């Protein structure tokens, strides 16, 4: 589903990612770890077409991203839900309208919009708060609204950048469980996080980045070894 072939990214002479190779299968769930500056965000931005690789190619569902341009970039992004650490909710509209945004943008009928938004809010347990302004919600609730927005148009891929970064362990576990539920429903999931305690509880592959290089998790065969090594390898930085 997501494939990186010899991908490098250089920012103003600074190497952010170097010769990255990995494949994420359809319906797979994986973590992306590494300490700050290791290149996690850059990797997600390449998938979101926010950045273009300096070398190599990124493929989504067999489609080479470097060849996508113009309004096709926008259309491709509709296939990828994105959950942010700072959730990026708009404070000038209520929860319902925030979650409805991806559907409005994609040109859904308002009848379908109402149905899908309510379904997404129900899924994250916030149906009763659809009329509230996101600013009046707690941090955990805001993050759940962000997730509802990311999944409302049922994208086949869901990316999350430090989705539990600002939350306490209890809430973090809830959010992770929620994301896991989407994976069970068939969504391909890649979660960037340095919450190693959470990763350790979940039986999924971890892609480990250090200074722009993938030091583990790139191939399915590595998995067992990497998962054992991951906590020890990053212990000092988390």
């Amino acid at each position, binding site marked *: 589903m997501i494939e990186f072939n010899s991908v490098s990214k250089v920012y103003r002479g600074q190497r952010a990612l170097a010769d990255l190779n990995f494949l994420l299968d*359809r*319906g797979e769930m994986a973590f992306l770890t590494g300490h700050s500056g290791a290149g996690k965000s850059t990797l997600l931005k390449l998938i*979101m077409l*926010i950045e273009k690789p300096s070398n190599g190619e990124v493929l*989504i*569902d067999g*489609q080479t991203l470097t060849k996508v341009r113009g*309004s096709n970039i*926008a*259309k*491709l*992004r*509709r*296939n990828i839900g*994105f959950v942010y650490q700072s959730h*990026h909710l*708009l404070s*000038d509209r209520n929860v319902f309208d925030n979650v409805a*945004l*991806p559907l*409005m*943008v*994609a*040109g*859904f*009928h*308002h009848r*379908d919009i109402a149905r899908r938004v309510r379904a997404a809010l129900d899924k994250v347990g916030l149906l009763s708060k659809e009329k509230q302004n996101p600013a009046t919600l707690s941090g955990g609730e805001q993050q759940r609204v962000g997730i509802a*927005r990311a999944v409302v*148009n*049922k*994208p*086949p891929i869901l990316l999350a950048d430090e989705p539990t970064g600002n939350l306490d362990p209890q809430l973090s576990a809830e959010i992770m469980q929620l994301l896991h539920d989407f994976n069970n429903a*068939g*969504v*391909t999931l890649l979660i960037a996080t340095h919450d190693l305690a959470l990763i350790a509880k979940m039986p999924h592959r971890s892609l480990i980045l250090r200074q722009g290089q993938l030091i583990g998790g790139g191939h399915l065969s590595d998995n067992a070894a990497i998962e054992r090594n991951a906590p020890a390898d990053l212990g000092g930085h988390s």
Partner: protein
Amino acid sequence: MRDTPLKQGATSPMLSWRDQLRVWRDSHRLFAKQSFDRLWEKPLATLVTLTMLAIAIALPTLLHLGVKNVSSWVSYSDSGLEMTAYLHMPTVPGQSITDFNSEGQALALRVAQLSGVKQVEFISAEDALLRLEAIAGAGSIDIIDSLPANPLPAAIRVVVGQGPELASIANALAQQIEVLPEVESVRFNLEWFQKAQAIVQLVLRINLAASVLLGMGVVLVIGNTVRVSIASRREEILVAKLVGATNAYARRPFLYLGVWLGATGAAMALIISFACMYALTYYIKPLEAAYSTNISIQRLSADTALVIFLASAGLGWVGSWVICSNQISKLEPE
């Protein structure tokens, strides 16, 4: 996970073209409404902008009205040189006025066939008297009524079409009409017409230049307002783009903003113009009484008002588009 290609997933709606059209129309309607409502979130700033626009639009409008009125007061018509052929008084004994007038009408139609003639109008003696009364005002009615008979002759008003050889055409035409047995004399004032024409053309050119400059002003003011609006809604644009908004989609509310500013500014300019013309009527009344005359005031025609309104809305769209095409596409998530 279903094994279908990514592009055909549930992420885009499966709608008939009729429903797609409906969704498109609904989204435009929503954007139009939201953009209009947003204008009044900062009423003071909006009013200042609108007043600037209204003044910029009202100035050429008023200049246009000025030219139109002064032209009308001095009987200058842009359509062409006016020539009046006065007919002999009815002399055939026993001929009724109706017969005389229908002969005059027939003559007018013959004159209309002559080369260079753009328009003809037969003015009967009775019509001429009514027009005199209208121009001379209420005070003159007693004097006119005291006359034993209508002293005015019937006439044919001829408009000679504009052209580079107006002088020679007009002279030739006057000669042709003058030799007609029914015609007593032909009067026209070529020199005056040409002077008036030169002045009117000059003023119209000045107004055109002013309109172009002020139109650019309208584009810039609206462009700047849209730029500020884009800056203040940066976050919203970025989030919309991250969830798959195209540049066209992100531009839409701002294009509506530009159109609303142009249209509302034009509406205010038209109100200002109507108010000015109303004030003019008010000040002309004592003048009319003093000179015992009627001054007709030429108002803004509905057509012209519509053109001004649509042109301003169009300029708003242009101003907004210039800024949007530059700023919105530059605004990409980082």
